[in-house]
């Protein structure tokens, strides 16, 4: 038992930790190649993320969407679904929630906020259900459909926000939606900063998702389907319905992340989408090893990186794109634990690869 316990510590804690360190080392090489001092650059990154005025609060603000998105992708992973479409679900959810939140007036915040959130989650859930339904009904691979649906969602967003009579606000110079009703805004919880209630809500989502996966029948069904569709089917579990349900839940979490951004930070949407959330979400889930609790530190790391990157660029002229190099490297090390094993000569490094999607593998030669 002790050995198994240690093995779990290695895979769930040590490998991700070492991977993060390695990711920063690779980033340092890039900084040197770009003619700067890694210590200075990382110092600025750290200052921008934690020690500058209000930096920690801002880091928590940028952590918030990563919590929802990371949970969304992690939940999909557990059912063997690779939801690359968190980004699209994020935007469609935002659109739905924003529409509700600027359309309603005169209700107290205790009603308006939940209405906005529910609309956002419903939007994300519905959008994700398209990919779920296509997979359940026709076997269309969700990786392809969600990639394609991402681009469709960007175009839908741009169409709705750009078109008069739809979601375009009157009398604005750059296209955007009207601001949400003041009663629908998520209140700030730290005076003088932008940190809002949405962060607390996103934190609460972690134990909720954990409970859902580990303690409920829905979670059991979802994991059974993720590991073996054949066995699940033979035991009377409807694989198709489980896939649609999982995608819907995953999309709801992504939509939640989206609408919280609107109600807590931006108060409206523009027609340009800041792409990249989708990949970041997958990165967070991978780093967390699909464990809801793991999403917590992983999202925090990504929030800090994003928040500190701007200051680093300002101070050192190193492009904020550097953090993409760091993120990509971290994932390489997490997804290929063999490399970490070699580098650090961890005894009995976990040889197994990250189990992400359930696939029909060739029957083993026995």
């Amino acid at each position, binding site marked *: 038992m002790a050995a198994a316990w240690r093995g779990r510590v290695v895979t769930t804690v040590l490998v991700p930790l070492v991977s993060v360190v390695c990711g920063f080392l690779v980033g340092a090489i890039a900084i040197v190649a770009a003619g700067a001092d890694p210590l200075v650059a990382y110092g600025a990154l750290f200052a921008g993320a934690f020690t500058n005025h209000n930096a920690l609060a801002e880091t928590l603000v940028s952590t918030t969407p990563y919590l929802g998105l990371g949970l969304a992708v992690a939940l999909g992973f557990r059912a063997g679904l690779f939801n690359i479409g968190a980004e699209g679900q994020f935007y469609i959810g935002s659109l739905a929630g924003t529409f509700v939140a600027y359309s309603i007036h005169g209700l107290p915040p205790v009603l308006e906020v939940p209405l906005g959130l529910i609309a956002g989650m419903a939007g994300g859930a519905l959008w994700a259900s398209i990919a779920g339904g296509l997979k359940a009904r026709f076997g269309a691979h969700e990786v392809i459909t969600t990639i394609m649906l991402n681009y469709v969602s960007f175009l839908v967003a741009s169409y709705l926000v750009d078109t008069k009579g739809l979601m375009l606000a009157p009398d604005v110079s750059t296209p955007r939606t009207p601001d949400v009703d003041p009663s629908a805004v998520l209140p700030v919880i730290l005076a003088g900063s932008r940190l809002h209630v949405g962060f607390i809500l996103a934190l609460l989502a972690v134990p909720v998702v954990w409970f859902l996966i580990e303690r*409920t029948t829905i979670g*059991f*069904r979802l994991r059974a389907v993720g*590991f*073996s569709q054949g066995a699940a089917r*033979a*035991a009377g579990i409807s694989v198709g319905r489980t896939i649609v349900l999982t995608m819907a839940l995953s999309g709801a979490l992504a939509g939640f992340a989206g609408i919280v951004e609107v109600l807590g930070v931006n108060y409206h949407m523009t027609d340009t989408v800041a792409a990249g959330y989708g990949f970041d979400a997958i990165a967070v889930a991978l780093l967390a090893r699909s464990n809801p609790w793991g999403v917590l530190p992983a999202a925090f790391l990504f929030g800090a990186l994003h928040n500190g990157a701007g200051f680093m660029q300002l101070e050192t002229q190193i492009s904020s794109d550097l953090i993409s190099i760091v993120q990509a490297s971290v994932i390489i090390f997490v997804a290929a634990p063999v490399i970490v094993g070699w580098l650090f000569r961890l005894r009995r490094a976990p040889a197994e690869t990250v189990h992400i999607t359930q696939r029909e593998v060739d*029957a083993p*030669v*026995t």
Partner: protein
Amino acid sequence: MDLDVSWRQVHALLGENGAGKSTLMNVVYGLLRPDAGEISFDGQRVEIRSPLDAIRLGIGMVHQHFMLIPPLTVAENIVLGHEIANRGVIDLAGASSRVHELSQRFGLDVNPRERIADLSVGTQQRVEILKALYRGARLLILDEPTAVLTPQEIDGLFAIVRALVAEGNAVIFITHKLAEVAQIADVITVMRRGQVVATTTPKESSSADLARMMVGRPVLLRVEKKPAEPGARSLAVEDLVVLDDRRHVAVDKVNLEVRAGEIVGIAGVEGNGQNELVEAIMGLRPMKGGRVLLEGHEIGRATTRSRLHRGLGLIPPDRHRMGVVLELSVADNLVLDDYDRPPFARWLVRQFSAIREYAERLIKTFDIRVQNPEQPVSSLSGGNQQKLVVARQLGTLPKVLIASQPTRGVDVGSIEFIHRQIVSERDRGLAVLLVSSELDEVLSLADRVAVIYRGHIVAVIDAKDADRERVGLLMAGAA
């Protein structure tokens, strides 16, 4: 371990599932590396690092799961890796004529231009043998080659094997079936748990001797059971039509009934519609026509879930794909059918103490060897995994059990246990539909034998009238 194979001989490698026969041969064929030891071929010490090395030496292998690529043609499959080509451009006409020539020489009738996907299993096996011969194989390894053949096709295969040996080649014949060994082998090597326990000949050792060597203790070759006392009609299938994945008719107007307290066995070569039949009865595959009745009630449109709850039980044919979820715990697997019903769940919340209690009870009753109910099923032996599947199905006290290949890939001890369980449940009134490609299993367990051929039930015979010869002919479609 040691193994010596001589030219002009059929050398049988006999052992239970998991005895290490296939592993050994995969080493010889270069798919696996040995940890220690050496291989000699033609008196020379050789090192076989890859299948390519093996092929160069003249070793060919026909795998249990065919190594053919379905969308490619026969000719393409045969020449693959040793193509007839002109500066990298394939000469398919040349390949076809070469294949035709070879198939004529050995009396293996195949059409080089057909796609593998369109061929029967027996023909695919001939393609595999041709593939090895095309590469100049002098030592041919056949891994469980008879599993998918009718008794008559097996005779055909044996003729080919004898012809090959007569030309001076050697054949290693891997099997777990005692009857075949007596028929074809010149020399027999018996393996148990990765070790050679004996090398003998069919003259020196009887079947009973071989069985004892294989298992390590005396084995009952027959199942003890008293005559069946059939009761009311439990399961009935009427005019059932089912399509396979390629949308061809796989089950054609099948009528069948199973009474409480009897075992009806379905004999047939694999791929004659058995899986589709089972899946349709369980609601895992849509029916094209006909009815399925459980105790007189039509269940043809019910979901799998509701059929399970109404008293159907299933031991699926492929344990790893359909029977267990390897990554989940033993306890979770034992409640896989009922995970969301009381007492295992209250509302949406799972009740772990109830699950554990139930699991411990079944583990004891069905003698599943585990350290604790929380360990993943993947850590269990094949036999214990299969006992788990049986336990889960019988644990819910079904009225009808569909047992499809209930002992495939399982050690002899577990086979005996599972057979005893099935018979004793029959005696308590369970209706059993047994589907097995092991004719011996059907003949020894069933009270009535239904023979399936190309989706038709061609005959239903009383067990006492069913002998190997007659059933074998029926399985081959000779009415």
